[in-house]
């Protein structure tokens, strides 16, 4: 159940993020919206790997190596989400830098101001 909840929240976050990104004309707001969507994605990824009643995939005293398969949740989504997060951070940073330069150029953060290229 908790997985469904997390997953639904994740999806909702994605939708909210998209809505924000697709309707806000301010570059910074768009970037923020995308980070929200990213968080949603990450949430969904983690939620997919969740298995009820199991523990984190770290072998220690409570989780012996021999018994691990029955005790731990799926470690793969966790590994993936790590990568996804870092990539998200990278992209966000890049977008911010772009936004900065765009602002510098036109003294505006309105996406509709940057339509020199079209058709």
């Amino acid at each position, binding site marked *: 159940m908790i997985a469904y909840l997390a997953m639904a929240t994740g999806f909702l976050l994605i939708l909210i993020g998209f809505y924000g990104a697709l309707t806000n004309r301010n570059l910074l707001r768009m970037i923020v919206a995308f980070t929200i969507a990213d968080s949603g994605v990450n949430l969904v990824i983690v939620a997919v790997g969740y298995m009820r009643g199991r523990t984190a995939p770290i072998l220690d005293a409570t989780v012996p190596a021999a018994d691990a398969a029955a005790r731990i949740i799926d470690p793969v989504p966790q590994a993936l989400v790590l990568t996804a997060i870092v990539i998200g951070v990278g*992209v966000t940073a890049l977008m911010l830098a772009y936004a900065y330069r765009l602002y510098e150029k036109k003294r505006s953060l309105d996406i509709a101001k*940057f339509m020199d290229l*079209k058709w």
Partner: protein
Amino acid sequence: MVNALFIIAAALAAAFLLGLLKEQWRGAAYAVTLVALGFMTWISADWAWAFAMNGAAPVDIFTAGTEPPFAINLRMGRPEAVLTLIVNLTGLLSALAMKDALLALGRRAMAVLLVATMAFCGIILTRDIFNLFVFFELAAISTAGLILLSDDDRALSAGFKYLIVSQVISVFLLIGIIFAYHATGTLNIDGMADAAQALLPGGMQAFALAFFLMFMALVAELKPFPANGWALDIYESAHPAYSAIFSAAAGTASLYAVDKLLLIGGAAWLPAATGIGIVTFVGANLLALPQTKDRRLLGYSSVAQIGLILAVLGQRDVLGDLTSFIALGLLVAHSVAKAGLYWLSGLIAGRELTAWAALRGHPLMVFAFATFLCLLVGLPPFPGFYAKWELARVLAAEGRLALLAAILFGALVEAGYLFRWFGHAIKRDKPAEEISCAPFSVAAVCIAVVAGWALGLLWGEMAGFLFGRSNLLLALPLLFALAFLLLDFLPAWLKNTLAIAGLAGFFALTWTEYDPLRLIFAIIFTLGGAIVLLASFSAHGRRIGFYPAAMLMYAGMVMLIRATDTFDFFAAWELLTVGSYFLILRGKHSEPHALSYLVFSLGGAFLILMGFALAAGSGVSPRLTFDIASLSQLAQPVAPWVFLLLAIGFMTKTAAIGLHIWLPGAHAEAETDVSPMVSGILLKAGLYGLFVLLMSMGKQQLYGVELTTLMLWIGALTALLGNLMAIFQEDAKRLLAYSSIGQMGYALFGLALMNHLGWLMALMFVINHYIYKSMLFLAVGGVAKRTGTRAMYQMGGLITLMPLSFIAVLIGIIAMSGVPPLSGFGGRWIFYNAILDTDQRLPMIILFFSGPIAFLYLFRLIHTIFLGQLKDEHRKLKEAPFWVVVPQMIYVVLLLAFAVVPGIALRRVDEYMNQFFPEGGLDWSGLLITSNYGYWNPVAIMIIVGCIFMTLFGWLLFVNRRAQKVKQFNIVFAAERPYRPETTHFAWNFFAPYRKALGFLVQPFATRFWDAVTGSLHAAADFTRRFYTGNGQTYAIQLVGFVVVVFLLARGI
């Protein structure tokens, strides 16, 4: 062979190493970059070589010492080797081409370039879906970085748009990946594919959705139409060398990613790929039509090409093993061409298409440009051609004709705008700014050119290996033509001598191999071509570009008559089309006309391709390549359709009415010695095609309509309208061009009669038209050269100044109007005898009408140019150049000879035709020629007419021996006198009463129709492209919308 991982490792190591270098050591950093890229290129080249030569097995590369699917693995196989080679080579050469930009921005930019190249390789190599995502993100981010290399500060907004879109894409991709993982329990692509097969229906549904998201995300990376505004902005604003990477390398990588993904999705997703691909191909090509900016145009073209390849990938179910041959062929052609074009655009200062006129004066660059365009359009002998051929075959065989038609339509549109652009480059005013000659960039372009030709050679070999074909590029005529590319530095007279010797020599070598019918065409194509080429001795200087084009055309024609199977035939057909296009384009104002010629010709060629494909598909032969003669084995209901397609294709070349609008301009605007080539010789290629078609297929019926009857009507109407339109021309060469249309109508009519004499008549027209039209075009061209105008009313009275040209024209028009005793009469005589054999009377009546009309324009031609009043400024004119006159005199002799003894050419053909039509042949007893209906003795006619004529002439000379020679104003003028020759020369709108009576027949319906077609295409494209608003947010919305629409469509289906 080095482990393919070193491609990645080397790139990363070099990239990190760059960080250690000091900001100022840019030269060193650049060297490191180049070395790394070179190393990467070497690795993939090494692999590609190994796969090609030694047939090595694909190698799986494990990481982490663990077997897949538990660890990420890479694969280096044949496609991977080739594709990474493309990517790395593009990267390397682009690094060369953007040397200045890289040095300006420093080591960080170089590192980004390295990572970008590595990322594309990674996309190709990896077999892990999440790893694919990582590489995609790397590619996306580095793209965003490399966009900054551009001088164009609009690139910044393009980069941001790209980032927005890639965010959306990555969301979809991640969601898709995680759910696919959940459904299959693996991230390995092969594992996933296996697991997907084994899924239960319930799991299948969830998996399908996940797959859909992944698929859409990767497809979105392919810039599908219409969700691709962001990509176009990048293409337009990025540094051209990066655009080259973005087009060639990124496209290659993404395509291969989709290909891998399709492995998972299986056959169910192929239609979606095809659909998206073909919509993209056609849509992007259409939208490219109204573009005026070079890089954006190339962007549209890139998008379209990738779409095409996606569509090909989607046809995997029917293409089978051929998929990679076709897709690779298209891909390498696209990559080399697009990269080359982008590098080339980097050399050019202006961004308008017309700014490419700066290339003029740099033959090498023009050659490069032409090579790239031919590569893109898929003309022989380039890989795209082979790919197109196989694709057409399979699609037709599987009955996917709508798809084939769409592909060909898109290709036609693409050829249209690409060659329009080429026309701009060759013909427009040269801009003030010269092209930059940065040695590295030029080197990159040159390497691309070499690569293009090498690929042509390679694909020829492969086609030979796979399908047992001879390599086009190694065909002797083509080699000979291409040799002139290398010899282009020689003076024109030397090249001309070589060309003539080549043509004559080739004929001498091969003439025994032809049957009588082909022999006649062979004579016209080779010896005839040599005679026309004599006129080219009058050109001075080096005449760069003329000989390769001309010899390409001749090579095409020679190969055409030597072709026995459909592949050779079609290849020759396209070669001669391209050659003649370049030739026609040389004319001073021929830009639009050459373009319409090319578009019509290619359109016709595509119809021919469809025809052949359809024939092959219907079981004549399992291969598209089959003996042309076996067309006769075609059965209903396919046969008539094949016939129709082929006939229309050939009739495009002969400029049948409705498809004729390209001809007048093309022939009229061509150079003096080119007009006779394209009119006197090239048109015969179309007739030859029709001959071959009718010889092998005979009569066909479609819905109860006899198709040859249809051709009969078309021929008659063409003759009538061509002649009518010729009457009203003020431009001498246009007049001749329209007359060619009319003459071709006659020949078409004769062919369509489908009886012995009809064919003989067509052949008679082939010979006659060659002789007199070449002669007239040369004469008129010589006059136009001297007078500097082609408007006939501006000439007049030239008979005394240019007597030889006059004689040529006089003999020509007598022959052409069919007045005895010259050879045109023979054609008319056979014509009457031929139609007595047929039941088709109405079209024949139309043809009757056109006969005397020819008389009108011919008289006008000779009168307004040579007779009447000589103009002030022409008083000191000299006879046309010697070498222009020489062939005319040869033609005069030929015409007279052919008039007296038509048997030399016709007798053997007459016998040869007995095998098609045993009935109705001619009887050649002595000098008399007898048919079932009438008889004709050319020698007697000549002697009798000659005697009467000479007697009377002598008598008149005697009586008038004391006649006073007067000058041009000594005419009775109602007791007044003329004032100026211009106002005394009755020439303009010569047949005004005729126009009053029949002008309504020559309304330019066809022109209006085609104008409307192209106009509406343009207008539609211009309207549609407005949804590329330039707003990044809108682009993102479009992308989401695209996903949703495809989703709904997929659900609906």
